[in-house]
């Protein structure tokens, strides 16, 4: 089963490596991992997506809580939550598909952030899209039908619990 785990982490030397190392040492494959500082510059938030049965995930969450730099951990999977992922994708235009591409971008609320001409490849566009991972997958599928994908970068999933609950260490 797919799990989304959020971890609040103190910004200390090696803290991210210790979290990643814990998962690696116990044999868990991480599907995606995002990390950046929060509005408190001393605290980072990690979002991990991974697959495993509930008992296994429960154990890895308990092990994560034993790391000194970890402020708190939550498995958002079973809670109402919002998730989003950023995609930046570079495509080569196919002759006669300009309108189809524009329609695809419009439908998915994606937009071009760069455009350039290459002597050999022709018109190159870089497109930005944000949405849940499944929407990113669907968008990439449609985009590849109307253009030639040449490079892409996905940020991995970021997630927050819906409504008022907030992940924070107790005072």
């Amino acid at each position, binding site marked *: 089963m797919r799990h989304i785990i959020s971890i*609040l982490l*103190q910004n200390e*030397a090696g803290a991210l*490596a210790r979290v990643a190392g814990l998962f690696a040492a116990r044999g868990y494959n991480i599907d995606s991992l995002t990390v950046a500082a929060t509005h408190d510059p*001393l605290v980072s938030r990690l979002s991990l997506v991974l697959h495993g049965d509930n008992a296994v995930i429960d154990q890895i969450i*308990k092990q994560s*809580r034993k790391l000194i730099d*970890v402020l708190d951990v939550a498995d958002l999977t079973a809670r109402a939550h919002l998730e989003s992922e950023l995609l930046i994708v570079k495509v080569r235009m196919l002759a006669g598909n300009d309108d189809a591409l524009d329609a695809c971008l419009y439908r998915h609320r994606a937009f071009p952030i760069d455009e350039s001409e290459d002597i050999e490849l022709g018109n190159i566009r870089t497109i930005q899209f944000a949405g849940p991972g499944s929407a990113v997958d669907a968008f990439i599928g449609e985009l590849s039908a109307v253009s030639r994908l040449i490079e892409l970068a996905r940020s991995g999933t970021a997630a927050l619990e819906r409504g008022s609950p907030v992940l924070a*260490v*107790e005072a």
Partner: protein
Amino acid sequence: MNAQLDIADNDLSSASDETVAAHPLAGHTLSGAEIVVQVLADEGADVLFGYSGGAILPVYDAIFRYNHDHPNANGSEPMPLIVPANEQGAAFMAAGYARASGKVGVAVVTSGPGATNTVTPIRDSMADSIPMVLICGQVPRPAIGTDAFQEAPISNIMGACAKHVFLVTDAELLEATLRSAFEIARSGRPGPVVIDIPKDVQNTELTFRGEGTLPLPGYRARLRTVQNAKLDDAACTAFFAALERSRRPLIYAGGGVIASDGAAALREFAQAFGIPVTTTLMGLGAYDTTDPLALHMLGMHGTAYANYAVDDCDFLFTLGARFDDRVAGVPKQFAAGARFIAQIDIDPAEIGKVKPVQWHHLGDLPRALRRLREYGREHGFDPQRENRYAGWHTHVAELKHVHAMNYDRASPLIQPYAVIEAINRITDGRAIISTGVGQHQMWAAQYFDFREPRHWLTSGSMGTMGFGLPAAIGAQFARPGAVVIDIDGDASIRMNIGELETVTTYNLPVKIVVLNNCGDGMVRQWQKLFFKGRFASTDKSLHKKDFVKTAQADGFAWAQRLDRPEAVEQTIADFIAYPGPAFLEVMIDPDANVYPMVGPGASYAQMVCGDFIVARSEPAAADVNPSSMF
């Protein structure tokens, strides 16, 4: 980063206003190295173990000056620095000191190879929950990441092995980091903490504050939760409702009882209600093994009677133990007759990790046990008066009698069990025993009496050969007046044999016994049982080492070889009575095995008892291929 330190200071300010006088050196300018030594002294370090080198020289110089300037009343050094043959020895000495005393052991080593040589003892201490602080020199900050001389990525390497590792990149945080390292090492589930200190940080002039720790908000919040956890009436009621229904309750006690100083509370609880106790390898000493309620050790090489009692119990009370594979074997079949399993631990990750439990409490173990005992007494729970467990006590006594430990007492060869029994008789089971890893370790666990905590020092989880000798050295520093005996094997002692010289250098009265069976006995036992007797690389009968000459070369005035069974008693008496360092090699029956044995991946029903311990039934056939198990 400075903001963090301010938060910590605010946390402490209220306490310091009321009671704590300012540190006499507060406000003074000290070098980073001097701050290291001052905080070590403030935290109670009375001996350090370590090996010098370029990147740690400022700290070594500061230790030298501290000892020179602060002699004890008798002129001795307040913080002697004990130098091993290898840094692995230093950190195992610190671990032996910590295990024997319950205090944080401290080792101080240089960068690169000095630090990497301690990876094994750090992991060993993590796996056995031993409090330790390891201070490593590191190359100066500008050189980090340049493949400098004696540089190694210690924070990465140790991050995977230790309870925590600090790389001090901000000199201003050095003092708070040192204090926090001790706090982390000794609090919660104890463990080793590594501080990697670049040489230029050691040389930085800093203002000593005399107080303050890092904020560690997540760790402290979780620690408060377990430290403040109380057993409420509902939890006590549920516990006793289950215990009321039990007629065959059993306590399964692990190393957590010793780490939490819970032995007295365990004794009071077990004796108040008359509940028999078996302990893990790490729990030996948590309950006096000579007590009628004691069943000694359970598990892979536990006593047959303890393992049968686990099979027969209907209520299992797990205290500071974690259903390790060497104990639980096949978790589903472990204590399969127990309708109710209760567990107390301080680590939330140990609840339900291996075996589901019906009741658990996360918190301080002795406090929880005392609360349960009082609750039971107040609510009229008195199985002793009702003689409720009379049948169970009779059954347990019969198990102990019928399935007692035994061996070939008529053999013309020296039996290792007889050697342990003789040492036990002569020391009245009160010596501090360390071991290597293998058959000799299990024989020592099985045939010694353990009356008190912290008398049994063994590498339980990691199973590190070479642990015994340096651990004994560390223990002797922790308990200068105690009889400390390293029970070792001929293969295990080779791993850190350089530390023989450390014993005589410091004139420690450590006693070293090598049970020599000319090879890796435990591996040979597995090869006999599971690999059709193909003794790949485990036979050392053609090895040329003369252990007695080795000991003599390292300065042992008392070094003897014992190879006549009739001389066992007298030789061991002389050996123990010798006032200084003593070394005894005993040529034992090379075919002696460790029984009982629950094979890897097997259940207790498949326990093999050998020819001299009475089994209850023929062992059930194995349902896994043991050669594939670990």
